[in-house]
């Protein structure tokens, strides 16, 4: 594929056609809504579009799916900040911060911080897709089972960092959830583990219903504990405003998080959720005020949202250039392309340059438009805080149940959601963080598959995997992320010792 400015300009004018713009905007409105509803994820939003895309022109079909995808990843932050319930798993880190900020009457500023981060990440990833696809795809090709295993281990290391005060409880939850992640057929022999003859468990415990339950039901039950009144006093529903300082202070944070997003995006099997957690964790380590994390940190929100939205374009890089769908949404794009007779891969850029450049340029424009659509949604949805809890609580439960059912049309998922929710409430009451649940359930299956594959590849000689450069890099980062906090503590001790000596 040759970088071709004419195709880019052609694509630009294609996107600007009124009908195409309308599709982008409508797609964003649908996407943000789907992302904001608990249980409905960006992947599900794209899946809903697939049947419609069959009867559309290929460019429009792909623009619609791109818009819904980007909007869906963004939408999760709205309920995360306002209600403390992440709309999608990728917004879980945002929820830790958002809830506290909303209580402090800074919901407007928090929403804007997240929106700016999301837009920045989105534009960064869209530009990477447009300009650097071929080299990025080369890197993606190098990511095999050993790299995925390392990435999963690195991701799990976040469990220890999330809540350092409660490290034992976090580890306990993390280990138990890794165990839950093994329910269902084992990846190699297909032997059903811990399924107790319940055929619905054959494919494992569904992750999304568990996360919806664990994140939303406890919030609802907390509302019911004190059912009178509203979530925050009317006077505390703040305006959508952002200080210039919020952006200038976070310039480096934005870039770092965007890069993490793009990097995780191009890796097969890892998506926005993992990117958000990793980026949040890195931001915490780099922060000058790490103690604020979990108690309302803008840095946290910006890092998580930038990285999550930084994934979307990266996700499509291996698909467009190599024809490899690295994630569930990418697989849906592949399906829609195949039905239109477009075959992703190197031929796509010569045979269907028009379509593919329209889509890639559209991706940039969609992410710019996302800021304005997001702003509108933030404005409308802030009113949620004015709704009495007695109305809000049952509405959330209904939305969570409907959303969970809608994804797979499967009643078992709804039961899973409620059971997980009740367990989650018990956990919160006893000081167990639910964050490790998300990490372990998302990373567990990835770790297991990568581990067994690495084992087969090297016939059990695990050390062989250190002959792969990316594995070594990821290993080094993992080690560093464990050692650095210790080093930091050590240095502070040295400093205070010196200070003490100087004083005496």
């Amino acid at each position: 594929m040759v970088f071709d400015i004419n195709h880019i300009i052609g694509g630009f004018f294609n996107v600007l056609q009124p009908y195409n713009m309308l599709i982008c905007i409508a797609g964003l409105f649908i996407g943000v809504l789907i992302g904001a509803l608990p249980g409905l994820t960006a992947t599900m939003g794209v899946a809903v579009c697939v049947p419609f895309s069959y009867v559309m022109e290929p460019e429009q079909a792909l623009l619609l799916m791109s818009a819904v995808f980007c909007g869906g990843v963004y939408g999760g932050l709205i309920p995360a900040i306002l209600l403390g319930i992440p709309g999608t798993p990728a917004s879980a880190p945002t929820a830790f911060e958002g809830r506290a900020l909303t209580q402090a009457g800074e919901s407007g500023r928090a929403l804007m911080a997240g929106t700016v981060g999301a837009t920045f990440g989105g534009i960064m990833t869209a530009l990477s897709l447009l300009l650097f696809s071929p080299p990025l795809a080369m890197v993606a090709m190098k990511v095999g089972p050993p790299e995925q295993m390392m990435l999963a281990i690195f991701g799990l290391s976040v469990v220890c960092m999330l809540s350092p005060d409660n490290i034992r409880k976090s580890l306990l939850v993390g280990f138990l959830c890794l165990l839950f992640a093994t329910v269902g057929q084992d990846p190699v022999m297909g032997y059903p583990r811990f399924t107790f003859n319940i055929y619905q468990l054959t494919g494992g415990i569904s992750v999304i219903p568990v996360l919806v339950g664990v994140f939303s039901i406890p919030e609802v039950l907390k509302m019911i504990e004190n059912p009178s009144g509203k979530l925050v006093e009317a006077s505390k529903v703040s305006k959508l405003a952002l200080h210039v300082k919020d952006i200038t202070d976070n310039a480096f944070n934005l870039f770092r998080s965007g890069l993490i997003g793009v990097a995780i995006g191009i890796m097969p099997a890892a998506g926005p959720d993992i990117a958000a957690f990793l980026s949040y964790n890195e931001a915490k380590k780099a922060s000058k005020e790490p103690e604020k994390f979990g108690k309302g940190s803008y840095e946290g929100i910006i890092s998580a949202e930038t990285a999550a939205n930084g994934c979307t374009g990266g996700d499509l890089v291996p698909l467009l250039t190599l024809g490899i769908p690295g994630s569930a949404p990418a697989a849906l794009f592949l399906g829609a392309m195949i039905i239109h007779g477009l075959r992703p891969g190197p031929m796509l850029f010569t045979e269907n340059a028009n379509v593919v450049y329209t889509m890639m340029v559209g991706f940039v424009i969609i992410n710019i438009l996302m800021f304005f659509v997001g702003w509108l949604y933030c404005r409308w949805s802030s009113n949620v805080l004015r709704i009495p809890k007695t109305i809000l609580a049952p509405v959330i439960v209904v939305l969570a149940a409907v959303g969970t059912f809608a994804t797979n049309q499967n009643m078992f998922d709804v039961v899973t959601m409620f059971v997980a929710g009740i367990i989650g409430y018990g956990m919160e009451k006893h000081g167990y963080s639910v964050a490790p649940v998300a990490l372990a359930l998302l990373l567990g299956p990835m770790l297991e598959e990568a581990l067994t594959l690495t084992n087969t590849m090297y016939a059990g000689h695990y050390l062989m995997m250190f002959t792969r450069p990316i594995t070594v890099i990821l290993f080094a980062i993992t080690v560093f992320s464990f050692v650095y906090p210790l080093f930091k503590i050590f240095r502070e001790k040295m400093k205070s010792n010196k200070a003490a000596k100087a004083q005496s």
Partner: protein
Amino acid sequence: MKKALSFLLALAMLLSVAGCGSGGTAPTSGGAGTAQPKSDYPKKTIEMIVPFGAGGGADIAIRLISKYAEKELGQNIVINNITGGSGTIGLTQLSGAKPNGYTLGYFSSTNSNDDLLFQGIKYNVDSFQPIVEISADPHIIVASKKSGIKNMADLIAKAKEKPGELKFGVGGAWTSWDFLKIKLEKQTGISMKRMVFQGGAAAITSVASGDCDVAVPFVSEALPQIQAGNVVPIAITSKDRFDLAPDVPTVKENGIDFTHTMWRGIVAPAGVPDDVAQTLCDAFKRAYDNPEYQAEALKAGMFSEFKAGADFEAFYRENHKTYKEMIDSTNLAQ
């Protein structure tokens, strides 16, 4: 409250779009031409259960044929993706549906043996009435550049040289990929090492990067990688060469009498009245024969093949036995 309002609005939008989508197919009255049986079936919308997600191979195949069958039946066909449990949840629901012809579902090679493959499955080969087969998708055997394998002879020689060491990528335990491996090994007396990926895309990526030696993706999964020159095409497992990949020889041309395809079809719950089954067979046959359908199916990478009625019924039973024997006689752990 504005949020609730906007939610309702968007919902209405979605629904109206759905309405437009299906409204496009003008109902033609009854089945054209053929002697109509006495029953007035179909007189309402037909539900088609696809036990896998939208956009996947199963979904694309069913949506394509349904689009054309709708016109023949004069009723809308609503696709319902009921996913989870490796496809068993949707099929369990289908097996429990009323056998009146208003609930149909997607079915493929291995599904009649699901009760052997998965624990707790209540349906079996007798729970379904086969209606039509619409495609039989072959696999393309591809090898990594690193492996040095160029054709079937190389592949077999390599596997014989070091038994159980050639890495064979499988797109999931007990999928069509696994059965291909079992059949090929039995027939040629070789043994290879299984590398189990979750999905075909991961397997072919691994072959492209050289981590895995051989994989057997479906045509649509394999073509981009073959065109990009990332993998070496060895052979296609169908009887004849495929129009989309005319340069890839069949395994037979390589001197081994071996074919393996994953057929896809449509079934109803057992106990459907004969005249209803007949109406469906006829309608799907006419949809299948439509040249527009054939062109679209080819573009989507499907290897069309049609069976219906007693023919398909006999094939369905035979296929069940073949796979059952393979499952009973195989220990994946080898």
